[in-house]
Each structure stands twice: as C-alpha cells, then as structure tokens.
C-alpha cells in the first residue's frame, strides 16, 4: 500500500474528527484564536514601539562648533575623521551663514539680541557639524574623540555633548528599558497563551485516550494513531489564523488615524497592509506549529505499545 493512501486516510480522519468533535474543536479554535491574536498584537506593538524609539533617537545629536576662523579644509578634515568612526551614522555640515540664519530665525522676536548682533557688524558664529550616532549609547565615545581632536589643536570651539549628556543618557536608558520590557512582555504573553492552547488541546485529546488505547490494540502504528490528531491540530491553527487575519483588517483600519496621532509617524493600518506577508506567515506558522506540536505531545502520552 502506498504512503499516499495512508496520508489520505489520516487526513480524512483528522477532518472527520474535527467535525464530529464539534464542541471540543470550537473551544480549541477559540483558544488558539486568542493566542494568535496576541501574536498579531505583539508584532504590531513591537513595530509601534520601534517607530517611537527611532523618532526619539533622531532627535538626539552631538554638535561640534568650530571657531569662526576655522578654514574649510580644517572642517573637512574633522568631518572626514568623524565619518570614519564606526559609531557615527551621519555628519551634517552647517555653514557659518546657515548658522547665522537659523540663529536669526530663532531670535526673531528678541530685539536686544538682534540689536547686539547688528552692532557686531560681522558674523560671530562659526560653522558646525551635526553628528548622529548609530546608537544613542555611543555618543559618549564620539564626544571623547572630538575632545581629543580639540586638544590636539583642531579649530574646534566647543562640543555641546556636556549640555546634552544628561538627556542623552536618560534617553538611552529609556530606549534600552523599553526594548527589554517589550521583549519581556512579549515573551510572557507568548508563553502563557502557548501553555493555555497546549492545555486545551491536551484536554481535547484526553477525552480520546480510550480511543487511542483501542487503536493500539487493533495494531495501528504510532503515526496512524497520531496522524489524525495532528491533522485536527493543524486545522485548529488554520481556522484560528484565518479568523485573526480577518479580524485584524477592520481593527487596524479603525485604529489608523488614532495610531498616527499617538505615535507620530506610525500608522497601524499601513503597517498591517504593507507587512501582510509577515502577519500571514507568522500567524499561520504559529497556528500550524502550535496545533501540530501540542497534538503530537498530547497523544504521545497515551501512545504505548
């Protein structure tokens, strides 16, 4: 007899047992739906948290102010040295004119300052370099490097790291903690819903333990006994996955504008539709794996020769 015939029979019995054990199947599907919904929400909240952190990280930088007498060459040299650092993401050059323009814009309403500026006659501001690190925790290293350049005689007037240090350190801490907390909560939710689903399936199979015993006695091989339960487990996963994906669409749609207001740039609906393949594979993958694995382990308990 071919393997294919066996597979067909096992699949058919799995489907039949799913249908005939309607109430048990329904409770397993509802339970797994909650688990898979948690998986979907974890992906969404992870992405939202990440976008907020990126937004915050973008606000932080270290600015190197050059003396007004610094030449273009000197500035270019420092910029080159900084860009070469592995910790540095980008450097942006701000010319003396740009610095003056933004200073004037900032103090447009401040008569006294503007008057003082006019009395000076010439541009008192030096050029500057805005340096962004790849990670907020790396600003200290960059600042130290800039200070070493300063003491080596580069035409650097000052670095604003000291002023920003507190904010940067605090922000680094917040970012780090929220990442760890996010991972912790995600793990806790994932494990607890996994255990609940596993238990539901185990209970569903517990009611069939006598049946498994009879199958053993009739001479059914392990896989012939186990197969239909695993197929039923996979069906739980497929149906629950489908329900979750169908529910997430209108749900994210209704949160779309709210999420954008709350998180700044993050739109849950756009994220859901643009990452649909990720949601599809994660939710169905988890559903199928969870259903099959739970059934496999639960049946193993009652399978004895």
């Amino acid at each position: 007899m071919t393997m294919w015939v066996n597979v067909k029979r096992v699949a058919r019995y799995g489907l039949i047992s799913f249908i005939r054990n309607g109430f048990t199947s329904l409770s397993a599907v509802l339970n797994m739906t909650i688990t898979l919904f948690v998986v979907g929400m974890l992906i969404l909240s992870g992405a939202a948290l990440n976008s907020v952190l990126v937004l915050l990280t973008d606000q932080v930088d270290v600015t190197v102010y050059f003396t007004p007498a610094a030449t273009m060459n000197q500035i270019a040299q420092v910029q080159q040295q900084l860009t070469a650092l592995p910790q540095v993401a980008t450097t942006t050059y701000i010319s003396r004119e740009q610095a003056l323009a933004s200073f004037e814009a900032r103090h447009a309403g401040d008569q006294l300052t503007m008057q003082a500026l006019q009395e000076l006659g010439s541009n008192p501001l030096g050029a500057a370099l805005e340096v962004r690190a790849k990670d907020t925790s790396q600003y200290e290293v960059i600042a130290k490097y800039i200070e070493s350049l300063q003491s080596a005689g580069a035409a650097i007037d000052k670095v604003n790291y000291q002023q920003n240090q507190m904010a940067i350190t605090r922000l680094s801490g917040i970012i780090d903690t929220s990442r760890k907390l996010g991972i912790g909560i995600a793990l806790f939710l994932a494990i607890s819903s996994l255990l609940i689903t596993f238990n539901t399936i185990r209970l569903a199979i517990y009611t069939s333990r006598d049946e498994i015993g009879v199958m053993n006695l009739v001479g059914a091989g392990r896989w012939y006994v186990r197969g239909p339960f695993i197929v039923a487990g996979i069906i739980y996963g497929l149906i629950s996955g489908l329900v979750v994906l169908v529910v997430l669409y209108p749900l994210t749609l209704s949160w779309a504008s709210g999420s954008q207001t709350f998180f700044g740039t993050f739109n849950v609906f756009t994220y859901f539709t643009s990452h649909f393949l990720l949601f599809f594979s994660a939710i169905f993958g988890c559903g199928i794996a969870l259903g099959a694995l739970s059934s496999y382990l639960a049946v193993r308990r009652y399978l004895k020769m």
Partner: protein
Amino acid sequence: MPSVVIYFDKVTKIYFDGAPPAVEDVTLSIEPGEFVSIVGHSGAGKTTLLKMLFAEVSPTEGAVFYGSREIHKLSDNELLQLRRAIGTVFQDFRLLPTKNIYENIAFALEVAGKSDEDIRADVPHVLDLVGLAEKIWSFPHELSGGEQQRVAIARAIVNQPDVLLADEPTGNLDPINAHDIVEILKRINDLGTTVLLTTHNKTVVDSIGRRVITMDQGRVVRDNPQGKYVL
C-alpha cells in the same frame, strides 16, 4: 502453522512488589483450531492471561509464545503485526465512539494495509456475518449492548485472524444476546480460528462443550478437554 499456536511457559505475573501473583506458574499450550474457555472467579487471573497474549501486560517470570515467537521479545513493528493477526473482543466492547460502524471495522482493515476496494467489499460482508448489515452507518451509541458486541466481533475477525481472544464478551449482555454471541464465536471457530474465551457464565461454557481451563488465585487448577463449568 505450528502444532501449538499459543504456549505459556511457567508464566508468573506480579503487578507490583508485595502484591499476590495475578498469575502464578502457568504452563499451557493451545493448539490451532481449539475453542478454549477459561473460567474462574473474579481476580483468578483470566484477563491477565489474555492481556499477556496481546502484550498489554508482560510476564514477571516465564515466557509467552505465539507460534515459535516469544511475544514479549518482539520489536514494536512485529508487535503491531501480531496484534493485527490476533482478534480481540472485550466485555466493554471498546469501539471507537466517534466513528460509525463502517469506519470502526474499516479501521482494522486500514491498519492492516488493505486497499479501499477490499475494505468496501469486506466490511458489509463481515457485518452480514454477525447480522448487522442494516446498521452499517450507525454510531456505537445508537446500538444496544448486544449489537455493539457483535460489531466488536466483526472488527476482530475481519482480518481473518488465526486466534480470537474474547475477554468476558457476554459479561454485559442479557441471556439471549449472550447466546447469540456464543453462537457467532462457535461459527468463527468452525471456520478454523482458534478461540480463547474467558467467562463467568456457566450456561455459556456448558453450551459450548469444549476444552475448559479453570483458574483460581492465579493458578490453573483444572484443564478438561471437554469440560463443564466447575469452580
């Protein structure tokens, strides 16, 4: 087939330390085509003896042979083959509750590797043999005890086993149904299948008029080739 189909060689079974032996020093041989009734009080060791034949229980001492093979030294695969070659019927029927009658019997054929065509032909045939052809699409809970037991027998014989083990098959049945079941077992035996029956039922044993083994406290105390029910 060898001249002895089942052989118990000085078999003792103790379920746990300190418990009295469920079976003690039993040596028995059963030949092909025999109809053997094993009788005795509850706890005499009848069921343990049968359980050792399909390897649900292992002997503490001694060995049990099926033909020339020692049952408890078989590999998992060989054990499955053995179970497919021995039909079993129990007091509590042990049908698969979520499968209908057709599927219950088809299941035994499927695990034996029969084709769909053979299954479609064999199931109605064997149900006809036990007089339940019209119940083919019913579920076990829709049948009476006697009918369920007949389905269990149909399932046990559908693979044409060499040996049929029946553990108190009439225990849950009224006298008329019990009589019907025994008639079916006799018919199966007439077709060449060795039958091992454990029972409490004196009427049943006396009506068979074949070999009777009497057990008491785990030991074989009487073995009559054409016995009656005597305790």
